């Protein structure tokens, strides 16, 4: 018995959006926290720390996100931890986001003119104060547009959590499609919902970029 796509199916899709958003939010907050340290490590003057951060970024940017999710999911079992798809997806996406944000923010930290660092240390500021009061506040300004842009990439990435069995928007689309067999309609609506989430962020990112790229910054 094939069901047809109706109001209930649409509501089911809409309610799955909360899981896409929750997963994106967790991965963003976790990724930003770890990513800050990755960026600081990547710009560190201590060579082993710099090498380690570089390797970390290379590893996550040089392998498919899907493989990273699989490794977290199956790796936890190997270590004897029973991780459900939700936790595995959140952990995998957090690690992935931390590498990408780390690399984006590295560029922003390095965009702060060298003279600022030298002036701050000439004034007697040590590394924590130098970063906290001089470099990071200036780097944040440059970092906002690409970070918003990355958020779009992150929301789209959460769709891969469906492959390891977490029911977010894309998985909900598959479930509805299996019941109704109206793939164009179902995945069209799923795509439209993603678009409604991502497009405003893309526009915002582009506008912020224009504003901050204005002369006389």
């Amino acid at each position: 018995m094939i069901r047809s796509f109706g109001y209930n199916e649409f509501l089911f899709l809409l309610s799955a959006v909360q899981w896409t958003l929750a997963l994106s939010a967790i991965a963003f907050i976790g990724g930003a926290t770890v990513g800050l340290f990755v960026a600081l490590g990547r710009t560190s003057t201590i060579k082993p720390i710099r090498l380690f951060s570089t390797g970390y970024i290379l590893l996550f940017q040089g392998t498919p996100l899907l493989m990273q999710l699989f490794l977290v999911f199956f790796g936890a079992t190997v270590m004897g931890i029973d991780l459900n798809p939700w936790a595995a997806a959140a952990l995998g996406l957090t690690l992935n986001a931390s590498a990408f944000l780390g690399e984006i923010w590295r560029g922003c930290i390095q965009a702060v003119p060298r003279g600022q660092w030298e002036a701050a240390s000439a004034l007697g500021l040590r590394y924590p104060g130098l970063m906290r009061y001089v470099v990071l506040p200036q780097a944040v300004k440059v970092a906002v547009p690409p970070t918003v842009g990355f958020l779009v990439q992150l929301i789209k990435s959460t769709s891969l959590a469906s492959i390891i069995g977490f029911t977010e928007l894309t998985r909900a689309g598959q479930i509805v499609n299996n019941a109704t067999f109206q793939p164009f309609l179902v995945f069209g609506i799923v795509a439209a919902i993603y678009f409604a989430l991502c497009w405003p962020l893309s526009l915002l990112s582009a506008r912020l970029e224009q504003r901050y790229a204005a002369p006389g910054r």
Partner: protein
Amino acid sequence: MNYKFDFDAVAANWDYLLEGAWLTVQLSLGAMIIGLAVAILCALGKTSGPKPVRWVINAYIEVIRNTPFLVQIFLIFFGLPTMGIRLSPDIAALIAMVVNVGAYATEIIRAGIESIQKGQIEAGLALGLRPLQVFRYIVLKPALRTVYPALTSQFILLMLSSSVVSAISADELTSVANNIQSQTFRSFEIYIVVTAIYLCLALMFSALFAGIYRLAFAYDTDRR
């Protein structure tokens, strides 16, 4: 931790994995080449086409860039057959990759076209070169030089994201890994080896592209 690692399943299926890796490379190269052709057409349409054409191309780019690749694959693989177009998973994967990379590459190519200063073209024409010669001797190389780094990193992104087409069981590397996994249950060992293969592919291609860049574009372009 008392798990015993056992890589026999990987060793026994080594040929099969290599075949999958080869198909991943073929799919990615094929999608990149066709996608570039799409992108060049779209970039030309976007910079010098009539308004409706520009509008359609913009809509194409925005829709592709703001929806997940996985959903695009599902739309093509499950959606097209309902319109009577039957596709094998490999062809559906190729089409999805072309459509996807075409949108991203259009923006890159457009930036390349716009990076050429009008004055250079005018100077070439003033020196008596015909338009094709201007294109060949003045526009082409600097434009390629501008887009090359972005296009090559786009290719590597494409190759890595091609693992997602395993969701419709195309025969590429990740699907091969899934198949071996479901027969041997050695999931962790298989996926860690496959991840290493992807990393090797990515590093090999970026080294290759860097080498080509040094051979083809190593000249001084300081505009002073």
